[in-house]
């Protein structure tokens, strides 16, 4: 099987850019990735593109060809929609395509434009990732859904809002060194605990912001990298995806995310590694409780142990297992359909040594990215390894 290498990565600054079109955002990220890769335009064979709410935000369906044009490329382009895991599944398809031998050079990425809608409309738009009949009609918003999981977690395993606040504090601190992050503002545990309640037990600082942005990654086969003398030290060695019932009510555990466990187990097996080999992780912390569920599903912590990891200093910058050095979705921002590949961009830079926080993991060899859709009815996990 062909080894897949990351030849180039690109991001827009994440934040509020209500005036910028989706195609402009994606163009910026894609051109940055293309420049970073230094691959001839004619060699791009396919584009795998993630986007969630394009019909609602820009009245634009059929975004594949629009984004290929924006990226300055002339090749087939397909949009993948899997809620907040849209770019994660797009990336997974890109990896599979190179591994199969069907292509040597592909671009994977994603884009979301959200701030041109008001907060209420964004809340409504995000809610469609939940089960429309059985959750949305019963008033389940996205923060509401994660609040249901947070309360179930506290009941099953313990932990409290203060533990979650430490996660927010950690991720805000990490974002300080990330030029592309939406927030450059440190917060305290008290700030988080005193922020307005969104859906109890979750408050404003438990939630990621509404974000516009795009991300892109150029993937190449080993053979192509060698023939063209590319500097591409990071490989994608594991890929896994898992699924679950769409509605929370239909799952046996409200405080576990087995879709992510399945994705992680598959990705680890694919890479021939285990959780103990992981040096650094970027996980889908759309809400602070989501980071906890991710750490436990990835096998990095036992059930019930993940909630205190940030408070104990284990997942902080100076801890044994730094998590979300990018700032995470919480502080880096969460342009929904761009997040999966944005995590890959951040991890690639962390492993290559050209991220603002690379000095926190100078010897890291194995990184994991975890991207979730809905209340983790979908999950995609990738293992990245760097030549050292």
């Amino acid at each position: 099987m062909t080894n897949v290498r990351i030849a180039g990565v690109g991001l827009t600054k994440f934040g509020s850019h209500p005036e910028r079109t989706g195609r402009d955002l994606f163009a910026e990220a894609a051109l940055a990735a293309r420049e970073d890769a230094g691959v001839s335009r004619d060699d791009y064979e396919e584009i795998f593109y993630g986007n969630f709410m394009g019909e609602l935000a820009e009245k634009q369906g059929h975004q594949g060809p629009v984004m290929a044009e924006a990226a300055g490329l002339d090749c087939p382009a397909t949009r993948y929609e899997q809620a907040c895991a849209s770019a994660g599944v797009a990336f997974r398809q890109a990896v599979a395509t190179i591994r199969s031998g069907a292509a040597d050079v592909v671009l994977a990425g994603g884009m979301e434009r959200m701030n041109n809608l008001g907060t209420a409309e964004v809340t409504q738009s995000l809610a469609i990732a939940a089960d429309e009949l059985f959750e949305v009609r019963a008033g389940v918003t996205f923060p509401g859904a994660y609040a249901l999981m947070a309360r179930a977690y506290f009941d099953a395993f313990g932990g409290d809002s203060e533990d979650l606040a430490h996660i927010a504090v950690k991720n805000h601190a990490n974002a300080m060194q990330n030029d592309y992050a939406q927030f450059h503002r440190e917060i305290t545990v008290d700030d988080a605990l005193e922020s307005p309640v969104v859906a109890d037990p979750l408050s404003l600082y438990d939630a990621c912001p509404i974000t516009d942005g795009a991300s892109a990654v150029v993937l190449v086969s080993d053979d192509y990298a060698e023939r063209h003398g590319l500097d591409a030290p990071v490989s994608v060695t594991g890929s896994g995806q898992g699924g679950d019932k769409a509605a929370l009510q239909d799952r046996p555990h409200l405080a576990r995310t087995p879709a992510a466990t399945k994705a992680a187990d598959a990705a680890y097996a694919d890479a021939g590694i285990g959780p103990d080999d992981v040096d650094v992780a970027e996980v889908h912390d759309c809400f602070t409780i989501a980071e906890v569920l991710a750490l436990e599903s990835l096998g990095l912590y036992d059930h019930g142990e993940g909630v205190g990891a940030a408070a104990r200093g284990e997942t902080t910058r100076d801890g044994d297992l730094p998590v979300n050095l990018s700032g995470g979705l919480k502080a880096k921002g969460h342009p929904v359909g761009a997040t999966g590949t944005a995590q890959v961009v951040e991890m690639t830079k962390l492993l290559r040594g050209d991220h603002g926080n690379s000095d926190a993991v100078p010897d890291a060899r194995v990184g994991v990215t975890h991207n979730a859709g809905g209340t983790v009815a979908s999950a995609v996990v990738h293992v990245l390894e760097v030549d050292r």
Partner: protein
Amino acid sequence: MTDTGYDEWLAAIADGEGYYLACPDGHGSLPPRRSCPHCGAAELTEEPLPATGEVLTFTEVHVPAPNFADEAPYVTAVASFGPVRLTGVVRDLPADEVDLGTTVSVGVGENATTDERLVVFRPASE
């Protein structure tokens, strides 16, 4: 707009004749559905929904979506009714009196914002 299967199910709950779908292996699920989500069996029968359920988790939503603008703050809960779980809005019970394990009955109410029918939990009379 009608939603065949779902609308009939809500109407049955409103009439006090709620049901769930059971497969030959005893898994429960909610309509509209043509196969069991747990084992794939296609032979589903309607069985009476238990009269009361138990709250498994809940949240008081303070920031609503537009379709609940006139309801906030409101409590949404997931409650267990025998072999199935339902998600609904809790009414006739103050938020600070809802707890895990609270016994509720299920009925149908109206969403004050959209006039849509919705699943409603109320404190069960002992």
